[in-house]
């Protein structure tokens, strides 16, 4: 995490994509912001990383990033995982922008499957990597039909899935990519963030953009937009809770990852947001397994 970022590499246009492509993506993003939750098709390009690794997110970031931006990239909450390190050094190399691991310092955050624990502020942009943008895809395979369903707000089918969850598990067992209604109209997949992060989508002051490279769609939740998680009256939406605090920083309010320590059943729970956890530890908070 402390390794110096590589220097700017010459021979590439600023932020890798050519200006026309960036403009095309920005146009799609403007439309997405204008119609919150609506999936806007765009001409997705080949990027120097495989599908499923964030080709959508990286294109959105490339289209938006400017020389003065400060970039943070997280993967499942951590700044130091392969995907995050590589995308961060990619932009350091092709755009020469400053990078950071601090959520508050960043102007642009590209994320895979988490929303940082530190509350976002106005002016910040959060870019999500999306594998499957269509929330109704596994229920209705026809694209023409799902588009009509979105246009007419026919979302009863999504409740059939939640109903089936309760039948089988006694509760709504969907724990990530939990479907939401944006701005009282469009049903949206929030990308595979844990449902723990769903309440953070609601009326968030930051601009949230979603990019799906393989599926060639972008969509957006503009600042202060209503985002409601689907549920039943008698089975209301609720987020995950843990019985113990973070073993390193002692927080009881964060999303925790379970880490297996040995094959004797020893395990620990730690914050999935590595930067948030480290900041707390520096501030003197200690969990029971802290060094």
């Amino acid at each position, binding site marked *: 995490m402390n390794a110096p970022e590589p220097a700017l590499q010459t021979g590439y246009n600023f932020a890798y994509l050519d200006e026309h492509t960036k403009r095309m993506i920005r146009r799609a993003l403007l439309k997405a912001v204008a119609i919150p939750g609506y999936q806007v098709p765009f001409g997705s390009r080949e990027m120097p990383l495989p599908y499923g690794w964030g080709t959508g997110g990286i294109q959105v970031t490339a289209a938006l990033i400017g020389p003065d931006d400060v970039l943070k990239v997280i993967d499942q909450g951590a700044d130091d995982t392969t995907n995050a390190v590589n995308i961060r050094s990619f932009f350091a190399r092709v755009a020469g922008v400053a990078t950071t691991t601090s959520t508050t310092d960043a102007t642009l955050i590209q994320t895979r499957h988490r929303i940082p624990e530190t509350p976002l502020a106005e002016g910040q942009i959060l870019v999500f990597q999306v594998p499957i943008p269509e929330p109704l895809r596994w229920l209705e395979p026809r694209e023409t039909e799902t588009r*009509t369903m979105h246009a*007419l707000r026919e979302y*009863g*089918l999504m409740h059939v899935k939640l*109903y089936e969850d309760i039948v089988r598990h006694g509760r709504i067992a969907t724990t990530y990519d939990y479907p939401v209604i944006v701005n009282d109209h469009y049903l949206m997949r929030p990308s595979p963030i844990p449902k723990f992060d769903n309440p953070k989508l609601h009326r968030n002051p930051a601009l949230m953009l979603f990019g799906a490279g393989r599926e060639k769609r972008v969509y957006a939740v503009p600042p202060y937009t209503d985002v409601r998680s689907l549920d*039943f*009256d*008698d089975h209301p939406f609720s987020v995950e809770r843990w019985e113990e605090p973070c073993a390193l920083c002692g927080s009881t309010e964060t999303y925790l990852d379970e880490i297996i320590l040995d094959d004797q059943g020893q395990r620990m729970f730690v914050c999935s947001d590595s930067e948030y956890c480290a900041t707390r530890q520096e501030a003197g908070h200690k969990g029971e397994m802290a060094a």
Partner: protein
Amino acid sequence: MKPGKLLLQVRDLSKYYGNRVGCERVSFDLFPGEVLCIAGESGSGKSTLLQTLAFELRPNSGSVCYDLRGEGLTDLARLPDASLRELWRTDWGFVRQNPRDGLRMRVSAGANIGERLMAIGERHYGDIRLQAQDWLRTVEIDEARLDEAPTSFSGGMQQRLQIARNLVTRPRLVFMDEPTAGLDVSVQARFLDLLRRLTSELNLAVILVTHDLAVARLLAHRLIVMRQGRVVETGLTDQVLDDPHHPYTQLLVSSVLTA
């Protein structure tokens, strides 16, 4: 049959597939609570007619008018898509020949019945479940099977589940495409009994496609006989079956062993 307000008015309805005739110049009226049977050999345009009536296929000419709740007789061609789709899942039902086309095979029976309720905005799990249970009982399926997927049901049960799934929103008109075709004779009899009971109890209008004149005899008030896309004979069921006028109807009636 007391002649009440018109439910469905069909005038000169034609549907072509290129140069081929699906159905041609079909006209009839349907009243609430009336069971109308469309009979004919395979390829005679029965299913095309049924799908055109339900506006799943757009007719090339002619009109279908339906007595919309609160709006009176309305030409379906002028109805916006949103209203038509709402009609499909509330005031109408469609029972398919193959239950795999009419059911969601991978979700439980309860979810199948509840789907329409959730589509019209029901958001209470317990209530949806209770209603699903009631309907299972009504169509004579053991309530203990509520949480089982239709794949574990017999053919007859699947067909009855399809009925329950359609009737849960209390439709006034149900389209049925050969609902008994895949069932063996004893199951068929029970299914027809159930259907007869439900149509009279719920004052349900039904347009039923079948090639089986025995089904028509048992259920239908009126009968339409089709051949090569055209209506060759129409009238009260008993009248048509006991005293067929058109040579083709005569052939059809005489070819059935026990009609």
